[in-house]
């Protein structure tokens, strides 16, 4: 990022001078790295936007029309639920398949929900509240068999578990750079699979692309049809470095590390009286994101006490996911969430467990 700011600084794709081309080279390199990470059919089908929410909005608003039926789950984030609820006003209907109390989803229930007018299945691969991993590939195969399009929100899973657009049968994959890809905020978007033509998807915004400037209509080719205005090139330069780091580490190695930490944290937390832990409570079936509550102490109080007294920073409340909290039985109070990553250590876990144990003793 400092290289981009100090040495490049130009607008990618907006001129033919060497610094503009160098900026475009950096953005193209990120496109390739993202395409490789998810086995996308073509780097030009990687669409960068404001963030993953922007990518989800492009997919849902760009694709769905009046009369279309959508299937989703009871573990979704508002990044999906709010656009879907908005689309109700435009004649789109959706069905939320009920999940188990630990967030697990039975693929058969998804298949049973398919209607003659079902166009799309949209799922959050890993819960942002309790880490539950949904059976993405199995449901992808159902979507393919039923000739439905399939949108996957990988906000919590990209960089955590291997994702392959081809074998997982994903048509629309949304991603963010700022979570487990370890890049900066404001880097994210949508990958459009090979079964979708550019004209099938309506761009949610129009404007300058640096291409076809003689025309006042939006281009009809990837990626320009969906990318206009100046991109966050400095952020994407940071994401490129992050992806290179991720490749040197290996997702499998990070996943193995996170599984060890997740198991340690689950063992520690479940040993504490008055503690309720949500989700599968099994490192194989979830990411290293753990939701819990101390009975008799509000989540907001727990968060404040952990911050002030123990230097432990976590997110409390509803995590922009009221649906998921209803499924887990934690609506409307929410819960405390610990999210672990590649840089956490076993010592971090021991300290966190002891801090929660101390707070739990004070709860009434």
């Amino acid at each position, binding site marked *: 990022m400092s290289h981009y700011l100090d040495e490049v600084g130009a607008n990618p794709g907006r*001129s033919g001078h060497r610094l503009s081309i160098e900026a475009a080279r950096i953005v*193209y390199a990120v*496109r390739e790295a993202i395409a490789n990470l998810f086995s996308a059919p073509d*780097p030009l089908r990687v669409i960068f936007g404001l963030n993953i929410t922007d990518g989800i909005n492009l997919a849902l608003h760009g694709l769905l029309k009046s009369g279309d039926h959508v299937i989703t789950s009871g573990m979704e984030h508002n990044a999906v639920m709010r656009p879907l609820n908005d689309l109700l006003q435009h004649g789109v209907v959706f069905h939320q398949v009920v999940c188990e109390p630990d967030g697990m989803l039975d693929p058969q229930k998804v298949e049973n929900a398919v209607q003659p007018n079902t166009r799309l299945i949209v799922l959050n691969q890993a819960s942002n509240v309790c880490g539950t991993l949904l059976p993405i590939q199995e449901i992808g195969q159902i979507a393919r068999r039923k000739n439905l399009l399939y949108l996957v929100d990988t906000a919590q899973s990209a960089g955590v578990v291997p994702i392959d657009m081809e074998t997982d049968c994903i048509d629309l994959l949304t991603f963010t750079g700022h979570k487990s890809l370890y890049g900066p905020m404001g880097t994210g978007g949508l990958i459009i699979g090979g079964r979708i033509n550019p004209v099938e998807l309506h761009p949610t915004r129009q404007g300058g692309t640096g*291409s076809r*400037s003689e025309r006042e209509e939006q*281009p009809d080719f990837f990626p320009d049809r969906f990318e206009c205005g100046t991109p966050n090139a400095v952020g994407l330069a940071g994401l490129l470095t992050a992806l290179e780091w991720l490749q040197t580490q290996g997702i499998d190695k990070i996943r193995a590390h996170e599984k060890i930490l997740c198991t340690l944290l689950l063992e520690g937390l479940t040993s504490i009286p008055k503690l309720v832990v949500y989700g599968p409570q099994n490192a194989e079936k979830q990411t290293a994101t753990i939701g819990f509550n101390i009975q008799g102490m509000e989540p907001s109080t727990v968060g404040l006490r952990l911050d002030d007294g123990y230097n432990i920073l976590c997110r409390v409340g509803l995590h922009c996911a009221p649906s998921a909290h209803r499924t887990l039985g934690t609506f409307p109070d929410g819960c405390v969430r610990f999210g672990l990553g590649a840089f956490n250590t076993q010592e971090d876990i021991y300290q966190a467990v002891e801090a929660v144990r101390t707070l739990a003793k004070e709860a009434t």
Partner: protein
Amino acid sequence: MSTEFAVILVDSTSHALRIEKLLVKHELTCKLIPVPRHLSSDCGVCVRILKQEMVEIKTLLSEHKIDTQSIEVL
């Protein structure tokens, strides 16, 4: 005799970069330049190549199923 060039016109800078990467990999001479006004009113870039390598490059692009708008001799 001065060097003779051709240019590959493409839809966008991203398309030009994809071609540049392929040509560099195959040790073919290329440079991204602003699109000459007499060829197109586009404000983007195109890929300048050596005229003598044009046939080889056309074959390579075809093998990799890479679409172009056109290839023009300068």
